[in-house]
């Protein structure tokens, strides 16, 4: 088990190193010179432009050779410094991200976990109930096949604009100041619901289908047949099948995390929800590669951490990994 985790750690370390390196390259090798952009945006009169140019080149640390920039980047990284945003100059990237992260967690965590939980249970139900299988599964397929943003836009428009039941933008009402009260919390939830729902729905279908198929496999497996032959009630067999089918779903969760980020971007854009996804889009549109770099770094760290957590959980729930029997 130690070996297993050690191996995983090694891969994570490598991944992190490589990812950060790629990440570092973003602002440096992308088209769109950030400094000239800044100057253009300030729209200063000619005489100041040169002064500003020199100033910004220094401010972004672009005045040293590339290898030095690379080393500096790592150094700064360990001090929690991700540089300065161009789009939101002179705000440090880390601050922008710090403010956005809670919103992401607020939406992503419940959406991921609840969809996973609900999807797995409903999928397990569908595996034995024909009517559910026949009704829910097609819906599930359609949901997973739906482009995130399209679903989100339809939800926003129908429930937000036409029905007017839900707000369509922001994390809480514009008229409310954040404070601790029931009213504010309700308002927060009110705004949270649609973005959450759009992510939840799309992911839910995938889990449900995956679970259903896994359960069917498990129910056909040797140990299920043995138990059946011993007259064990279906309930116990299903319980086992569910538990065992859950294991691949856990790995699936790890694999999905990267992809969920995509969903978050689309959803946050549609609902103008002030999370990282929204910032990424703006960073892309504003050529703010430093910010983009920071966001990706955070996502990478997040995904790595989550993966690692899942790995640990996996080791705990699956004795096979613990004995080093599985290669992965």
């Amino acid at each position, binding site marked *: 088990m130690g070996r297993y985790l050690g191996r995983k750690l090694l891969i994570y370390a490598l991944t992190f190193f490589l990812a950060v390196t790629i990440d570092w390259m973003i602002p440096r090798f992308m088209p769109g010179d950030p400094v000239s952009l800044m100057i253009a945006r300030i729209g200063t009169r000619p005489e100041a432009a040169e002064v500003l140019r020199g100033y910004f080149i220094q401010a972004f640390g672009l005045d040293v050779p590339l290898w030095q920039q690379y080393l500096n980047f790592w150094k700064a990284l360990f001090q929690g410094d991700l540089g300065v945003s161009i789009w939101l100059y002179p705000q440090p990237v880390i601050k922008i991200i710090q403010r956005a992260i809670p919103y992401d967690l607020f939406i992503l965590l419940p959406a991921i976990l609840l969809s996973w939980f609900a999807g797995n249970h409903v999928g397990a139900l569908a595996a034995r109930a024909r009517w559910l299988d026949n009704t829910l599964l097609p819906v599930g397929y359609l949901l997973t096949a739906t482009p995130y943003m399209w679903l989100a836009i339809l939800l926003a428009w129908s429930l937000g604009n036409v029905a007017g039941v839900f707000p369509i933008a922001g994390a809480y009402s514009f008229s409310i100041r954040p404070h601790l009260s029931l009213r504010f919390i309700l308002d927060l939830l009110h705004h949270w619901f649609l973005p959450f729902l759009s992510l939840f729905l799309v992911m839910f279908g995938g889990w449900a289908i995956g679970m259903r198929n896994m359960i069917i496999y498990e129910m056909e497996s040797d*140990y299920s047949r*043995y138990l059946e032959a011993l007259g064990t009630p279906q309930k116990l067999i299903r319980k086992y099948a569910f*538990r*065992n089918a859950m294991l691949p779903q856990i790995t699936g969760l790890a694999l999905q995390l990267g992809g969920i980020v995509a969903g978050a971007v689309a959803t946050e854009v549609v609902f103008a929800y002030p999370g990282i996804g929204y910032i990424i889009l703006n960073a892309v549109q504003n050529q703010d590669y430093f910010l983009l770099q920071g966001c990706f770094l955070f996502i990478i760290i997040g995904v790595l951490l989550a993966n690692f957590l899942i790995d640990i959980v996996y080791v705990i729930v699956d004795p096979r990994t613990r004995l080093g*029997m599985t290669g992965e």
Partner: protein
Amino acid sequence: MLQVENLTVYYKTIRGYVQALEKATFTLADGEIMGLAGESGCGKTTLGHSLIYLRPPMNYIGGRVVLDGQELPIWDMEKMQEFRYRHISLIPQYAMNALNPTRKIGKMIAELLESRGVSYSEILPELKRRLDLVQLTQDVLKMYPIELSGGMKQRMVMVISTLLNPSLLIADEITSALDVSTQKAVCEMLVEFRDRGFVKSTIIITHDISILYQIADSIMVMYAGQLSEKAPTEVVFQDPRHPYTRMLIGSLPKVGVRYQEERLRGIPGSPPQLLNPPPGCRFRDRCPVAFGRCTEVPPFLEISPGHSVACWRAF
């Protein structure tokens, strides 16, 4: 006491029925260990499974199974439920994979028993005794199946399957994957279980006849879905009446026999397919003594006490 009459079980496939078990009729006395032998694909597993666990694509076509005077509703998955495990139990061919890989063995047994309304704590002392008997330490209850070797798993399944003292135990190819020394140990345990009365009677399915010679009281030979011969072990070896049995016994190498000295002979030809098999005796094509009568299906008749055979030549 098991009585099987005209048990017929087919597999339903898209191209029709695979006639894997045709009118099987035999009895199994209390305390009897019966070996079921035959070529691969002749329906041994089908017979074994149909007694306990008849599920699609297996189709019950006809026949009766009476265990201890009670007819088993083998065609009804639900009704069979109460007989399974308590009265009739199984050690499957796939014993290596028969345990839930993610449950500790003890826990699994507990859950299995509780689900059948048996108290685990009450049965635990007995369980431990039996583990000792099969030379497993009690620690295995705290282990996961993956931590056991193949032979250990095999024995573990044996213990589990027989825990409720069923009248009938079906052991399907439990020795094929084992090497000789483990094979021997497992076989001896089967006998031990019978001797101690954990099970009343046992059907051992195998294609390794020399093992049957060691432990079985009687041997039943099947060929292509039909019963060929059933007789006490000695009789089968000394006085086989069915030509197939004879040829089968003849093809067994004995320790101490070398090909230079005594060249053994196999059975030429191959068995018929069971999807729309030819009428009559299915061994006809390979039988050296076949004659006109063999186009009719020979009945499985008792020709002497405890010795039944299905061959026109034998009657």
